[in-house]
């Protein structure tokens, strides 16, 4: 069955709401408006205002309330419109949700799922376009997911809700309209990275909105007889280092593609792990393609220039291969 990424997210939430009365959805414009990205269209009519809860513009307040509700026995899905706005709730996420289990000596788990859009590409400029997944991936106590395929959009929410600890799900805004066949085996774990394309010459390691770009680069390079392997991290915390290492032992070369800024990026963490675990397997220095170090600009040509793009990925691969 063909479906969009948006519809896959919607179906996953619908299934969870229908299956478990403890599950409810809360966030800005999730109800009457149907969700900023229309992921909860029709839910208000079907599940009612108690479980499809429109909130005021109070990210700190309603994310904190989500934590409290999770502690109180419910399974909240809290939607924050974008990662940029989630900064207003960062205190509750980092100082409470992530820390509570540890600082209470293991007495309290926080089964909270936080969903938020991330990423650039729609000319929304410097306050709606950033990729801050790595900030969250830095924090012990939370899991960080980045579904980049229809199957993961459909499959990741279930295990995230079943997880007793806080899970943050990043949905790249450029992916919502992505449409393709939903495979029969869409059910998945939230622990492992995935091999999206097998290859032998070099590993392209990426996640989220950069996955389609990495796959397009791999197609283009295949036409030049360069056989690229593409790894989709999927889970940004904890990182599945074993899958990365297995790929590197085969290809001996890697380029990391990450829409975050280069300095302190998730790409930097992946590269560090490659150095720690695969140094003697490497045939060339590891390279990366990240966003340029500039707040994302409005003008289309400038925004495009700021982000990882297929030609940049192709060039980075060729450089590592010495071609």
């Amino acid at each position, binding site marked *: 069955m063909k479906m969009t990424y948006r519809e896959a997210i919607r179906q996953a939430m619908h299934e969870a709401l229908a299956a478990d009365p403890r599950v409810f959805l809360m966030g800005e414009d999730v109800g009457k408006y149907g969700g900023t990205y229309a992921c909860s269209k029709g839910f208000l009519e079907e599940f009612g205002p108690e*479980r499809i809860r429109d909130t005021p513009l109070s990210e*700190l*307040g309603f994310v904190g309330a989500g934590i409290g509700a999770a502690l109180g026995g419910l399974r909240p899905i809290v939607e924050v419109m974008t990662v940029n706005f989630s900064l207003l709730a960062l205190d509750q996420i980092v100082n409470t949700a992530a820390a509570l289990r540890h600082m209470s000596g293991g007495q309290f788990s926080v089964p909270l799922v936080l969903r938020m859009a991330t990423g650039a590409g729609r000319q929304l400029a410097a306050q709606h376009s950033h990729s801050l997944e790595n900030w969250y991936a830095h924090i012990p106590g939370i899991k960080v997911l980045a579904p980049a395929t229809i199957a993961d959009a459909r499959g990741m929410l279930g295990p995230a809700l079943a997880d007793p600890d806080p899970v943050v799900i990043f949905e790249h805004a450029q992916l919502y309209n992505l449409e393709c066949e939903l495979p029969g085996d869409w059910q998945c774990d939230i622990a492992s990275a995935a091999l999206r394309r097998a290859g032998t010459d070099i590993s392209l390691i990426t996640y989220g909105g950069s996955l389609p770009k990495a796959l397009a680069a791999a197609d283009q390079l295949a036409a030049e007889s360069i056989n690229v392997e593409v790894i989709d991290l999927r889970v940004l915390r904890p990182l599945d280092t074993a899958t990365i290492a297995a790929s590197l032992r085969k290809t001996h070369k890697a380029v990391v593609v990450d829409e975050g800024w280069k300095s302190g990026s998730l790409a930097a963490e992946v590269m560090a792990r490659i150095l720690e675990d695969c140094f003697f397997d490497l045939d060339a220095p590891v390279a990366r393609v990240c966003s340029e170090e500039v707040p994302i600009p409005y003008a289309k040509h400038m925004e495009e220039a700021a982000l990882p793009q297929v030609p940049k990925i192709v060039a980075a691969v060729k450089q590592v291969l010495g071609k």
Partner: protein
Amino acid sequence: MTVPYAKDFAQKLLFDMLRIRRMEEKCAELYGEQKIRGFLHLYIGEEACAVGALHALAAEDNIVATYREHGHALVRGVSMNAIMAEMFGKSAGCSSGRGGSMHLFDAATRFFGGNAIVGGGLPLAAGFALADKLQGKQRVTACFFGEGAMAEGAFHESMNLAALWQLPVLFCCENNLYAMGTALARSEAQTDLCAKAGSYGVPTLKADGMDIVAVHEAMKLAARHVRDGLGPFFLELQTYRFRAHSMFDPELYRDKAEVEEWKTRGPLHTFSARLKAEGKLTEEEFLALDAQANAEVQASVDFAEAAPWEPVEDLLKDVHTP
């Protein structure tokens, strides 16, 4: 006003205040001996608030508190042994030694911390109340915070959510006049805290936080309102901390005369004097209660001293649920 309680309950209130006082005096001493480290925020002077308030709540209610929460934890029923061991950093502590003085937690008594981000507990309390409302539970979530928290956005966001959704949460502000070293009037344009909270359409009440009877009666009224499903309530307890903000505070921001003036209203000696005047307490009974409190403190110190250190191999435990 006559103390409207039978002798047993009146003495119970006094005894709980004594337990907090004696425990914390010992904590200050142990801090000097470096047995307790980190930040230590004493509640001395404010005991009537926790004791009066918590005795108005039921076992099934939720408590969310701040980093000045030793008293609340103790009165709620967390054992002094577990509190003391926590401050020593021992795994026998109520947070397994991972929290310390500022992060006392106890699932058994529904004591949810121990929050050291000013205002951080308020959204959480709204969430507990939301969970109870959605699950049809007639439970009160009591959220304690200082007046300093009322300058935080979290206060406004939480009041709005609680009022908008008519959540069963009791916001209990312990106004001790200073946010660390900043006096209320130096940080708030509106110093009438009830006016501030009341602007959300939430009913409010002010009570003398140095008078345990006033606190207990106000809290009973507030808790009944919340339990009856009439929505949130804001209670301001006007109190004063006799000791420094933390153990590192040289108290440059207030006059000694002001502290001395407030000490004349101290909740322990004023309440015991009232009970004596009403024939509900003799000096011998007072001394016996005090001795009992001191014995409990000494036993808790012995317990904490004797408790083993958690092995370092356990360091990464309890980051995630196994």
